Structure formats: structure tokens, C-alpha cells
């Protein structure tokens, strides 16, 4: 699904050149639930941005679903993101003046899905997240957990192959964080590849594979056997 080989990325700030990723080789198969850990500045967010084509690497090969990401313009990148990737952000990144339903329906809008159809689908996904009663509410009327579930609904509505979550539990309390992980695990069981960037060990512990970045290199990459299961909210009757 995701093939990175010898990925380099540096940022130029003034006269300084900051070499963030120093030749990353990473392969994520379809259906994996992966967490990327590392101290701040280790390049984990940069890596996630490159995987999500929000940022372009300087060097190396990146294949998404077999397609080489090289020299693509913003229009193409947008189309690829829309087709393959769903994003979940630490700060939710909901559009504040749109209702929950409109927020969820946004990726479908950019796919050119008719208003009626996308509203129906959005309602369906809100229902899955237990937020149907909140569909006409504005994001600022929702709690942190509700906002993140809304963001997850939005990340899933266009049925992406990969969900990229950048510190999805960073703004949540631990109880809500665990609920969020239950949800992501349930989604993963449906066959969707999930990559989570986190610095919280207990969150990473609940993924199947943990990758540690150290100074722009992969320091450690191991399968995680211990997998704590709880009843998922996602598969409620």
C-alpha cells in the first residue's frame, strides 16, 4: 500500500538547512495498523505529511498504492488525497462555520457527489459515530471526543484506502483517547490501513506495529503482539 524508499526531506529556514528525514525506508501493507513514535523534531509529522501528499519529499521514491508520487502538481495531489487518503488531525481541523453534517460531507463535495447523495451518506456516517442527533450543530457546540469522531467520520466518508492520524488523541483526555483507539481499531478491522503518529506509549501499544523515528531515521520497527481489545463503539448494533 505504502512504499517509501530512501526518503529525504529538508527544510530551509533562513540560512539553516534542517535535514528532517534522512533516508526513510518503510513499507506498510494493506490493512496494517501502524503507529509512528518519536520525540518532537524526530520528523514523524513530516513523514506523515509526505505519506499524505500534503508535502513533497526531496529525494527517494514514494509509491502510494503502486503509483509513484513524483513531480505531481497540486491538482493531481488533491485528486490522489481525495481518492486514497483520509486525515484525522490533533486539532480536529473542522470548518467552524459549517454544520457537523456539512463537515462530514466535504470530501464528497470535492468528488462531485450530488448534494442529496452526500448528505445521505454523511448522515449514515454520523449515525455510525453516534452523532446523528448532532448533525445540525456547529463544531464548537461539540465536545472534544465528539469533534474527533466527527473528524473520523469525515476521514472515512469517501472510503479511503488509508487513514492518516496525526496525534489523534493529543487533545483528548485518556478515557476519550481509549474510546478513539477502539474506534480506529474497529475501522482497521474493516481492512483500512491506518497510520497513527503519536508520542503516547499507551496509544502506540494498541497498534499492531510500532515504528520509532530517531533523528530522521527509523530507529526501531517491530510488530506489537500485545493487543488489548475492547468492545468497539464503531460496531454497535
Amino acid at each position, binding site marked *: 500500500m505504502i512504499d517509501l524508499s530512501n526518503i529525504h526531506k529538508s527544510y530551509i529556514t533562513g540560512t539553516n538547512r534542517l535535514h528532517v528525514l534522512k533516508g526513510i525506508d518503510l513499507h506498510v501493507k494493506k490493512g496494517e495498523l501502524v503507529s509512528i513514535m518519536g520525540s518532537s523534531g524526530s520528523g514523524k509529522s513530516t513523514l506523515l505529511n509526505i505519506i499524505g501528499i500534503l*508535502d513533497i519529499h526531496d529525494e527517494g521514491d514514494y509509491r502510494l498504492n503502486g503509483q509513484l508520487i513524483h513531480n505531481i502538481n497540486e*491538482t493531481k495531489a*488533491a*485528486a490522489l*488525497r481525495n*481518492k486514497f487518503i483520509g486525515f484525522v488531525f490533533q486539532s480536529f*481541523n473542522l*470548518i467552524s462555520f459549517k454544520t457537523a453534517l456539512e463537515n462530514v460531507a466535504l470530501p464528497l463535495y*470535492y468528488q462531485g457527489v450530488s448534494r442529496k447523495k452526500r448528505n445521505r451518506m454523511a448522515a449514515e456516517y454520523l449515525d455510525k459515530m453516534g452523532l446523528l442527533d448532532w448533525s445540525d450543530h456547529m463544531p464548537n457546540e461539540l465536545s472534544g471526543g465528539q469533534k474527533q469522531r466527527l473528524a473520523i467520520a469525515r476521514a472515512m466518508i*469517501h472510503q479511503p484506502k488509508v487513514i492518516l492520524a496525526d496525534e489523534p488523541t493529543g487533545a483528548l483526555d485518556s478515557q476519550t483517547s481509549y474510546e478513539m483507539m477502539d474506534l480506529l481499531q474497529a475501522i482497521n478491522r474493516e481492512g483500512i490501513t491506518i497510520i497513527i503518529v503519536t508520542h503516547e506509549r499507551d496509544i502506540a501499544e494498541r497498534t499492531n506495529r510500532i515504528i520509532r523515528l530517531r533523528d530522521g531515521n527509523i530507529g526501531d520497527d517491530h510488530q506489537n503482539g500485545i493487543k488489548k481489545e475492547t468492545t468497539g463503539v464503531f460496531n454497535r448494533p
Partner: protein
Amino acid sequence: MFDLDKWQEIITTIEKNKLRTFLTGFSVAWGIFMLIILLGSGRGLQNGIEAQFASSANNALWIWSGQTSMAYKGMQPGRPIRLNNEDYELLKKIYPDVEYLSGRYSIWSNQTLSYKNQYGTFDIHTVHPDYDEIELIDMKKGRFVNETDIKEFNKYVVISTEVEKALFKDGTEPVGTYIKVADIPFKIIGVFSDLDGRNNNSRAVYLPISTAQKVFGGTNRINTLVLTAGDASVEETKLMEQEIRTYLARKHKFDPEDDRAIFMWNATEEFERFQNLMGGIRIFIWIIGIMTIIAGIVGVSNIMMIVVKERTKEIGIRKAMGAKPWSIISLIMQESILITGIAGYVGLLLGVFLLETVSAQVQSEFFRNPEADFTLAVAATVILIIAGAFAGFIPARKAASIKPVEALMDE
């Protein structure tokens, strides 16, 4: 391509920022308002002055006499020059193809007109048949003086509607009726109207010049000679002036250089001067108007720039969700065009409304019927749409070029 969702989105953003949108729109509305007022007023000025010219042929050459101011062939200066029928014939001979030619002899001594027991004092002009084409008289009833009247010394009179109003209060049909002109009965052959802000042409009667010279003892005198130059250019009419001056100087024995002996008023030249002036004023007005609109555009552009800045994060989110650059560009451009369009239209309507209101109140000699015509409205609309697109273009480009990863980090 009409995209309902996009418009809804734009309307939502506008609703969220009512004051900002209003202020932005105001600068544009003001620009268009000023442009309309300026152009309308310019048109009013033009209409007013054109009406002045419309009161008589704008290609006429008027000639009247004065006194010599230079000694010539042993004659002292101060000798009055008197035009007469021979001069009329002379002009006819010099210009056999002249468009219109007429002499005019005005009665100044007794200007009383009377019908039964109604009296009034009016201007009494005596003219040749062509005069109605030169003074641009609008015949309402009957006819004007003709050649036969001149030849047969007919005691006919053509009166103005004003005279009719004053003398025929009893409702008698004036044409065919006799009135007394300076105590001599004349038969009315026509009624005319002559709208003229400057002269009292609407308070006038016209008699055949030959009759008048006979009846009022004017012998063969003519006060004023007037001819029209057809479609001759200003240079040609100036040449005509020179020619006529030379001929008349020879005939009346005055120095051709003497500019006090006879006077001329060249309407063609004046009309061209006026048209150049109006052209200049129009260009000036457009420049000011366009400058004002540019100020408005800069305002809109500025605001849209701020809008883009404010919405950077949102644009980042949209891009992450799969928004293509073009969709962002069209979003900003459409908002800009919508604001400019609506605000501009409000300005346009207010401007036209004001012109219409003022138009009824302000009617002076040199200012009448200020108006903004349909072409102008269309031009203004086109300007607005282009302006809106211009105002939105740079901010939209900026928005589209924002990198999603940077936009998402924006707080």
C-alpha cells in the same frame, strides 16, 4: 457553470462577515455612484449646451454691421455700415448653391400686436423664407413665409404659440385671422414654437421682409444676414468669412482689415469648439470615474487578501480533503465578483435614482436632462465584473498557491 453549493458557501461567508462585506462593497458602490453622477452631469451639461445650439442651425454664419474704425480711401472712421437687399443678392450670387440664406430686419419702434381688445408687445422680425430652417422653427399650424409672399408683398404674419396664448384667449383659431402689427392688419398664416433657453424666440412674430420694408418704411435695409454652410468644415467656413468680408468691404468701401465695420458669428466654429470641450470634459470625467473605481477595486482586493489570510487554515483543510486549486480560485473570485457586482449595482441604481430626482429639479440654461443611458449602464456593469475579477484574482492566486501543510499549521 453554475454550482449551487459554491454560491451557498459564498453567501455563508458573506453572512458571517456582514460589516466587512458592507464596507468593501461600499467603496465599490461609491465608485460607481460617482461615475454615474459625473457622467450623468456631463451629459446634462452637454444637453444644455446642445439645446442652446439646437435653437438655431449650428452651421450658420451670422453677419451684422457696425461702424468703421479705420480710415479708408480718404473716409474718416466712425462711418456706419448699413446692409441692404443688394448684399442679400450679392451673397446669393457668390454662393449660388448656398444651403439656406436669409436677411433679417427687425422692427424696434412699435412692437405692439393686437387682436380685438387684446394687446401685447412682442419681437417683430422680418425675414426671408429660408429663415425657418436657420432658426430651426417648429411649425405647429399653417406655414412659414414663402417666396410668393416676398414677391407679392403679402401682409402675412407667422406667430409663435406664445403670441397665440396671449392674444387668442377666446379660443379663436389664429390661422386665417387678422391681427394688427403696429396698427397695420396682417393675416396669420402659421403658428410656430421655438424652444430656446437663451433668446426670446418664443415671443416673436415673423413677417415677409419685403412687405415689412415697404410697410414700415425700412426701404431696403437689412439688419442681419445669415447663411448656413451645409456640411462645410470649420476651415471652409473661415474661408467663407474671409470671402464675404472682402466682398462686403469692396461694396461698402471699408478696409477689409477693419473688424468693427461688420461682425460675424460663425456657429460652425463655435459648435466645433463646444464639441471639443465636451469631448475633453467626457474624457476627464471617465478618468476621474475610473480612478474612483480603481480605488474601490483596490479596496476589494485588499479585503479579499485579508479574507484569504484569515481562511488560510480552512483552505488547508479543504485541500487536505481533496480541493483542487481551481476550486479555491473560483471560490475567491466568485465571492469578489459577487460583492463587486451587487455593490456596484446598488451604486448604479442610487446614481441613476439621484440623477432622475435632480433632473426634475435642476433645469437651467446650460444644464438639462442629466441622464445615464442604457449603454452607460451596460458599460458600468461590464466594468464591474471585470473589476471584481481583477480584485479577486491576486488573492485567489495566493490562496491557491498556499501549501496545504503550511496552511494546516496556520493558527
